[in-house]
C-alpha cells in the first residue's frame, strides 16, 4: 500500500489553498495584472513579500532546521495551482522551487535560508525552455570570475542572486549587482525572460552544476503541471460562467450543444490533469517513481493548459481577443508553459526510455 500515491488534498493543503486564494483575490485581480504587465515593473513584489515573507511560503521545500517550513512538493503544488489560477506575476516557481532545489542539491546553508525566508529571490541561470535531462549552456570561468552571456532566464529581472553553471562544471552564486540583466520582450507577460551578461562577475562556487540543475528542472517540470492545472481550471470555470450569462439568439450561449460538448471535454481533461499533477507532486515528495510521474504529468499538462486557454479565448468571442480581457494573459502563460522545462514531446521522448518503448532503429 505504501507505494500507492496519495492523489487527494489533505485538510491542511485545502487550508493552505484557501489562504493563498484569499490573498490573491484581494491583491491580484486580473485587471490589475493586465495593467501591471505593461508597466516598468511587471513583477508584483508587494504580493511576493506577502506570499514569501508574511505567509512563509518561499520555504515550503526547505527543512525546518535549514530555515524553511519543512513541507513538501505537495504543498508547493497547491500554492502553484493558486498562482496559476491568478497568472500571478511572482517568482515563486523560479525562486522557491527551481533555485531552492538547486541550492538544496548543493547544500549552501546561507543562501538556502535567505531564499526560504523570502528575503532574497534566486534564479537558476538556465534557459526556461530546457527539459530536465537536456544539455545546458555555461559561462566561462577564470579565477573565480565569470564571462559570457545566458539568455531566456525566467524572472532574472527580480533576482537578487543568480545560480550560474560554468565551464568548469561548477555552479556559482553571483550577486545580481555584479551582472547586467536585460529583459527580453517575452511572450508570457507575467513570467518574462531576460538575458544575463557576465563581464568578470565575481562568483562563489557552491557545488556541481549537473546534479543541481537536473534536480531543479525535474521538480520544476513536475510542479509546473500544478500551475498549468490552476490555469486550466480558471479558464474553464470563467468560460462556463461567461457562457451561462452571455445570450445570443435569445438563449444563453452555453445552452448550445456544440459548445457544451467542448466544455465537457475540457472538464474531462482538467479532471485528468488534476490526477496527473497530484501524482507528480506526490512522487516528488516521496522521491518514488518521480522520473516517470514528472514526465507523464508534463507530457499531459502542457497541451491541456494550452487547449483550455485557446478554448476560453474562442468561446469568449470578440471580447476574448481584446487586450482588456485577461484571457490573453492565460493564453500567453499557457503557451510559454508548454515550452518551459521541456515540451510535451521532450517529456514523451524521456518516457520512451524510462518505460522501455524505444524509437525505431535507424535503418
Amino acid at each position: 500500500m505504501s507505494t500507492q500515491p496519495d492523489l487527494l488534498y489533505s485538510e491542511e493543503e485545502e487550508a493552505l489553498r484557501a489562504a493563498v486564494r484569499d490573498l490573491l483575490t484581494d491583491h491580484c485581480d486580473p485587471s490589475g495584472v493586465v495593467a501591471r504587465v505593461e508597466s516598468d515593473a511587471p513583477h508584483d513584489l508587494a504580493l511576493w513579500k506577502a506570499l514569501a515573507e508574511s505567509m512563509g511560503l518561499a520555504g515550503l521545500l526547505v527543512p525546518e532546521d535549514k530555515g524553511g517550513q519543512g513541507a513538501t512538493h505537495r504543498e508547493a503544488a497547491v500554492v502553484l495551482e493558486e498562482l496559476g489560477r491568478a497568472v500571478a506575476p511572482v517568482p515563486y516557481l523560479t525562486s522557491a522551487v527551481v533555485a531552492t532545489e538547486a541550492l538544496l542539491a548543493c547544500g549552501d546553508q546561507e543562501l538556502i535560508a535567505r531564499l526560504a525566508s523570502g528575503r532574497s529571490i534566486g534564479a537558476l541561470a538556465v534557459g526556461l525552455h530546457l527539459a530536465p535531462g537536456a544539455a545546458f549552456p555555461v559561462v566561462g570561468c577564470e579565477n573565480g570570475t565569470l564571462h559570457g552571456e545566458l539568455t531566456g532566464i525566467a524572472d532574472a529581472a527580480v533576482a537578487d542572486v543568480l545560480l550560474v553553471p560554468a565551464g568548469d562544471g561548477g555552479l556559482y552564486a553571483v550577486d545580481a549587482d555584479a551582472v547586467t540583466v536585460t529583459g527580453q520582450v517575452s511572450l508570457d507577460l507575467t513570467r518574462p525572460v531576460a538575458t544575463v551578461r557576465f563581464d568578470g562577475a565575481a562568483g562563489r562556487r557552491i557545488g556541481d552544476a549537473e546534479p543541481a540543475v537536473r534536480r531543479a528542472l525535474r521538480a520544476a517540470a513536475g510542479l509546473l503541471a500544478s500551475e498549468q492545472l490552476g490555469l486550466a481550471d480558471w479558464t474553464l470555470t470563467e468560460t462556463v460562467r461567461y457562457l451561462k450569462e452571455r445570450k445570443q439568439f435569445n438563449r444563453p450561449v452555453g445552452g448550445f450543444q456544440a459548445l457544451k460538448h467542448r466544455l465537457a471535454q475540457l472538464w474531462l481533461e482538467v479532471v485528468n490533469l488534476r490526477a496527473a499533477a497530484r501524482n507528480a507532486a506526490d512522487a516528488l515528495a516521496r522521491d518514488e517513481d518521480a522520473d516517470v510521474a514528472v514526465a507523464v504529468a508534463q507530457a499531459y499538462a502542457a497541451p491541456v493548459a494550452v487547449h483550455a486557454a485557446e478554448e476560453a479565448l474562442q468561446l469568449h468571442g470578440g471580447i476574448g481577443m481584446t487586450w482588456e480581457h485577461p484571457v490573453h494573459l492565460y493564453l500567453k502563460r499557457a503557451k510559454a508553459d508548454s515550452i518551459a522545462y521541456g515540451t510535451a514531446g521532450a517529456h514523451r521522448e524521456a518516457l520512451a526510455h524510462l518505460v522501455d518503448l524505444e524509437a525505431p532503429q535507424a535503418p
Partner: protein
Amino acid sequence: MTDAAELLSRTRELLAAHPPAATDRLDFLKARFDAGLAWVHYPEGLGGLGAPRSLQVVVDAELEAAGAPDNDSRRNGIGLGMAAPTILKYGTEEQKQRYLRPLWIGEEVWCQLFSEPGAGSDLAALGTRAVRDGDEWVVSGQKVWTSGAHNARWAILIARTDPNVPKHAGITYFICDMTDPGVDVRPLRQITGEAEFNEVFLTDVRIPDSRRLGEIGDGWRVAQTTLNNERVAIGGMRLPREGGMIGPVAKTWRERPGLRTHDLHQRLLKLWVESEVGRLTAERLRQQLVAGQPGPEGAGMKLAFARLNQEISGLEVELRGAEGLLYDDWTMRRPELVDFTGRDAGYRYLRAKGNSIEGGTSEVLLNIVAERVLGLPAEPRTDKDVAWKDLAR
C-alpha cells in the same frame, strides 16, 4: 459500527466453519452471504453488515488468501452492478429476501430489458406496453442490446403503463421471468462476428404485480438508480500501469522492433501517457470514494475509457502491418463473458467501437457532464409536456 478488525475476525470464523477446500462452492458462497460478508455495505440479513463499503477489500483479501471461491462476478455484472442496488433501494422486504441471495451467489443471472429499437439515447420514449389485468401485468414489445439474455433467469424491465401522460411519467419498473413462454430471446450478431447481445421479443408476458419494483408510474426514477450504478461499475476498476488496452500494444512494441515506425512511436507514446493519466484519474476517484468525498469525476471516466480503447486498438491494428489485414475468427458464437482486451487486435478494435455507445453514448454523457457538473442550460425540449402517445415517431 463494524470495523476492519471485526470484519477480519468474522471472515476467519467463516473460513474455520466452512473450510474452502472441503466445502462445495455454492455452499460456501451461501454461508458467506449469510455471514454478512458478501457485500458488507448491504444491510444485515441481506448479505451485509451495514459496514462501510470501503472495508470490503479487507474481507476479499482474506478470502482470496485462503483460496476461497468467489462469486465470479463477471458472469453476473448486470445482476450485481445494476439489479441488486435497485432492488435494495426500491424492493419490498419479500423481494429483497427472494432475489438478492441467489443473485449474489450467481445461481440466478440477470439481464436488463431497457433499450428498444425506437428508444436508445431517448430511453424514456420506450414503447413496450404493460397493461394491468387483475393481479398481473400483460407485457408486449421489443427490447434490444440485451447482454446475456440467453443465460439470464431474471430481467429488470421498464415498460409503459400509461401512454396518456408525458413519457417520463408513464413508465413502471418490473422484474421479468425470462423463462416465461412469451419471452423470445434471439441472438443479435455484432460487427465482431459473435453475438454477445440479444433482441428480446415480449409477447403477452404475464408478470404478477408482486414483481413490480417501486410505484406504478415511478419507473423512470427507479431506473436512474440502475443507470447511475451502471456508470459507476464501468469506471470503477483498479488497474496497474499498462493494465488496460495499452498493455498488449506496449508488449508487441517491445517484442517486435521490426514493426516500429516513427509515426507510430509518437502516437503510441501519446496514448501511453493518456492511459496512465486515465489510470491515475480512476485511482484518484477511488481514493475520493474511500475517503467519503465522491466527486463528479466518475461521469467522465467512461468517456475517456471509450475514446482511449478505440484509439489504442486502432493503433494496434496498424502496428501489425500485414497481420493487421487478418482477423482471428468470424464464426458466430455466444460468449459467456465480455472481454474488451481479449482475442486479437482486430477483435479489440471492433469491440471497442461499442464502448462509446453502450451504457450511454459519449454524446449523451457529454450532455450529462455539461448540464449536471458544469451547470450549463439544457437544450430546449419539445417532449416534456406532451403525452407519450402524441410524440412524433
